[in-house]
């Protein structure tokens, strides 16, 4: 075949693939907006699931995600610090780095099953803590990887300047290196939060769901995503409408956090 013609064909096909990708994004967003916005009422935000709203679900989902973040951020950051600042270049650090990357891609449902065996089965019932732990397990490897990568971008000269000033290693890490990498790490935290706030599978049999408002983490805990899964499969129209409203709100939240993350990076550059 004529090579110029082949070139044209491939370029057209590539452009078409990009259009297809964008097309699906707009199709999904258009559907969500069209079905979601009309289903949102004042009651959606002020009433609990049992009365046809999602107030308790939003609070529950955010509570679990925030607790997961509070656990995952220090642990993940410290692990990232070890990999980059202490174990730098060692065989152990490279093994841990790879294992953490493997954990990042572990099937979320398997993490759900694991936490069920650990925190639900022995304690006699679904509970909010188990949900938060499952989300934290998903989040830690992401934070490790971003911290590790962001610390790698901090110029060696900064560390040397700290040493020249007579700073001890942990003081240099805390007061110079971490500060220099702050924005990047924050972006990583935002993006990983956006990822876990929309997770369903690890919550199915850890926190399960609760129709009522509760802040008691030791009982079944309200979850927005698990509720969407349940509501979408009920046959009645009202449940379905609520599922669309909840999906729309969840997507808006996730996309906003993502865009915020991007905005933070851009401001840095």
């Amino acid at each position: 075949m004529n090579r110029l013609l082949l070139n044209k064909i491939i370029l057209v096909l590539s452009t078409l693939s990009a259009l297809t990708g964008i097309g699906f994004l707009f199709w999904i967003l258009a559907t969500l907006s069209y079905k979601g916005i009309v289903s949102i009422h004042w009651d959606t935000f002020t009433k609990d699931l049992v009365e046809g709203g999602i107030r308790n679900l939003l609070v529950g989902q955010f509570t679990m995600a925030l607790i997961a973040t509070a656990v995952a951020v220090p642990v993940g950051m410290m692990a990232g610090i070890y990999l980059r600042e202490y174990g730098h270049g060692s065989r152990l650090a490279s093994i841990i780095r790879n294992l953490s990357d493997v954990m990042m891609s572990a099937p979320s449902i398997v993490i759900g099953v694991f936490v069920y065996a650990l925190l639900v089965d022995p304690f006699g019932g679904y509970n909010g803590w188990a949900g938060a732990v499952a989300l934290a397990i998903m989040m830690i490897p992401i934070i490790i990887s971003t911290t590790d990568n962001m610390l790698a971008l901090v110029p060696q000269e900064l560390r040397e300047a700290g040493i020249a000033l007579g700073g001890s290693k942990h003081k240099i890490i805390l007061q110079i290196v971490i500060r220099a990498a702050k924005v990047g790490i924050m972006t990583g935290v935002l993006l990983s939060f956006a990822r876990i706030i929309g997770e369903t599978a690890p919550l199915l049999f850890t926190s399960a769901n609760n129709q009522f408002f509760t802040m008691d983490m030791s009982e079944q805990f309200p979850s927005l995503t698990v509720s969407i899964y349940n509501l979408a499969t009920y046959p009645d129209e009202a449940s379905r409408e609520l599922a669309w409203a909840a999906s729309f709100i969840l997507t808006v939240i996730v996309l906003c956090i993502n865009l915020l993350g991007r905005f933070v990076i851009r401001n840095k550059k």
Partner: protein
Amino acid sequence: MSGKLFRNFSFISATLSFFLLVGIFAVLFSYAQEALHTFGFDFLWNEQWEPDEDDEGGVFGGYIPIVGTLLSTVLAMVLATPLAMGIAIFLTEIASEKVAKPVSVAIELLAAIPSIIYGMWGLFYFAPIVQAVFGGNGVGLLTAGIVLAIMIIPFMAAITRDSMNTTPAVLKESAYAMGATKFEVIKDVVMPYAKGGIIGSIILALGRALGETMAVAFLIGSVMSTVGKVTDPTTSIPVLLANNFAEAEDLEMSSMYFLALILFAISFAVISFAKFYFLGRKAK
């Protein structure tokens, strides 16, 4: 906080990934013991999944969900790989920066949408189209495979784009100077240069498709039957776990842990293969 304490805390945090990984294998393995002893490796070939009336025993085999997982993943990969490559080529070699930037962001946002949303959208808007075009009742292997493909495309495209972007401009320019067409530059310079990253991205996407639960739960049909046609409903390991785990008891429960162990082992193998052979992150 003293330096030593700080260092120790960071070391313990770092080893956590290792203990989590080993812990998951150990826990799944120990809970799967009952099923392992009762069925042995016949579990892998047995198509039955039938609890007894009294709910304490029964015959369980993982053949249908295992095959369903593999088929839906393969289908998704076959559909997603060429499209993702096309998108990456468009972003790196065709589009001007003005176009590439917003398109890149849009593609990455597609990756951020929660999988439950893909599932709902797929069930109410995409399944009817599949039904109209291909027959069947809308939910089944084909619908699940297509929507899975849409989910992994942005992920694959983003990594491929990044590794294509690392091709030194001077290599491409020399090829252009010799009169190569754009496609020839992509095929003979960019692709070979970015090969490791591209294959790695494909395998990572495969790992993601293997473990995807919510979208597939809406779309695969969730029935314990083998597929004859591509539009037939079936089930997959994550979907079976999502739907039946909470109500299962004893031997059935143990069989589900066995399935979770199999899924984790497959995905562990796939991802480590990608990591160690293609995406080796060198210490900078």
